[in-house]
């Protein structure tokens, strides 16, 4: 990523805590490579978001807008 030219940056620094984290924050327990990791949770969340978007759009467009008073025709 962005820091590949900085020699100090490598995978082994991953256990380094965030400077804004709470003391006593749990640390990384395992390492997941790209091959081992499928973002299932992300997919689930984003499908929910997609469903909300579709429902809200249909409601806003067809009920709130086209169903509103004083039909504008031009």
């Amino acid at each position: 990523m962005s820091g590949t030219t900085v020699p100090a940056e490598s995978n082994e620094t991953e256990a380094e805590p965030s400077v804004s984290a709470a003391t006593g924050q749990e640390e990384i327990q395992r390492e997941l490579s790209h091959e081992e990791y499928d973002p299932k949770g992300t997919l689930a969340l984003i499908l929910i978001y997609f469903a909300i978007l579709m429902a809200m759009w249909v409601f806003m467009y067809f009920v709130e807008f086209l169903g509103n008073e004083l039909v504008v025709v031009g």
Partner: protein
Amino acid sequence: MTLPSFVRTRGGMLVGLVMLGAIGFELRTVAGMLFGIDLPAAPYFIGMVAILSIVGVYLDVTRSTSPDTAT
């Protein structure tokens, strides 16, 4: 008693409760806009805050691990 892991700390609890509060608040808007159910504001919000407070106190008392005093 087993508790979900997000109530291990007060900080996490605060974030969770405020998120629930926001969702509860939005639900009234959804009921009003989408379903035409006009829930009276004052009882609804007072009730919501009361329930969240009770949940918060309960979770705090029964918090299982990590007793450090974060927010």
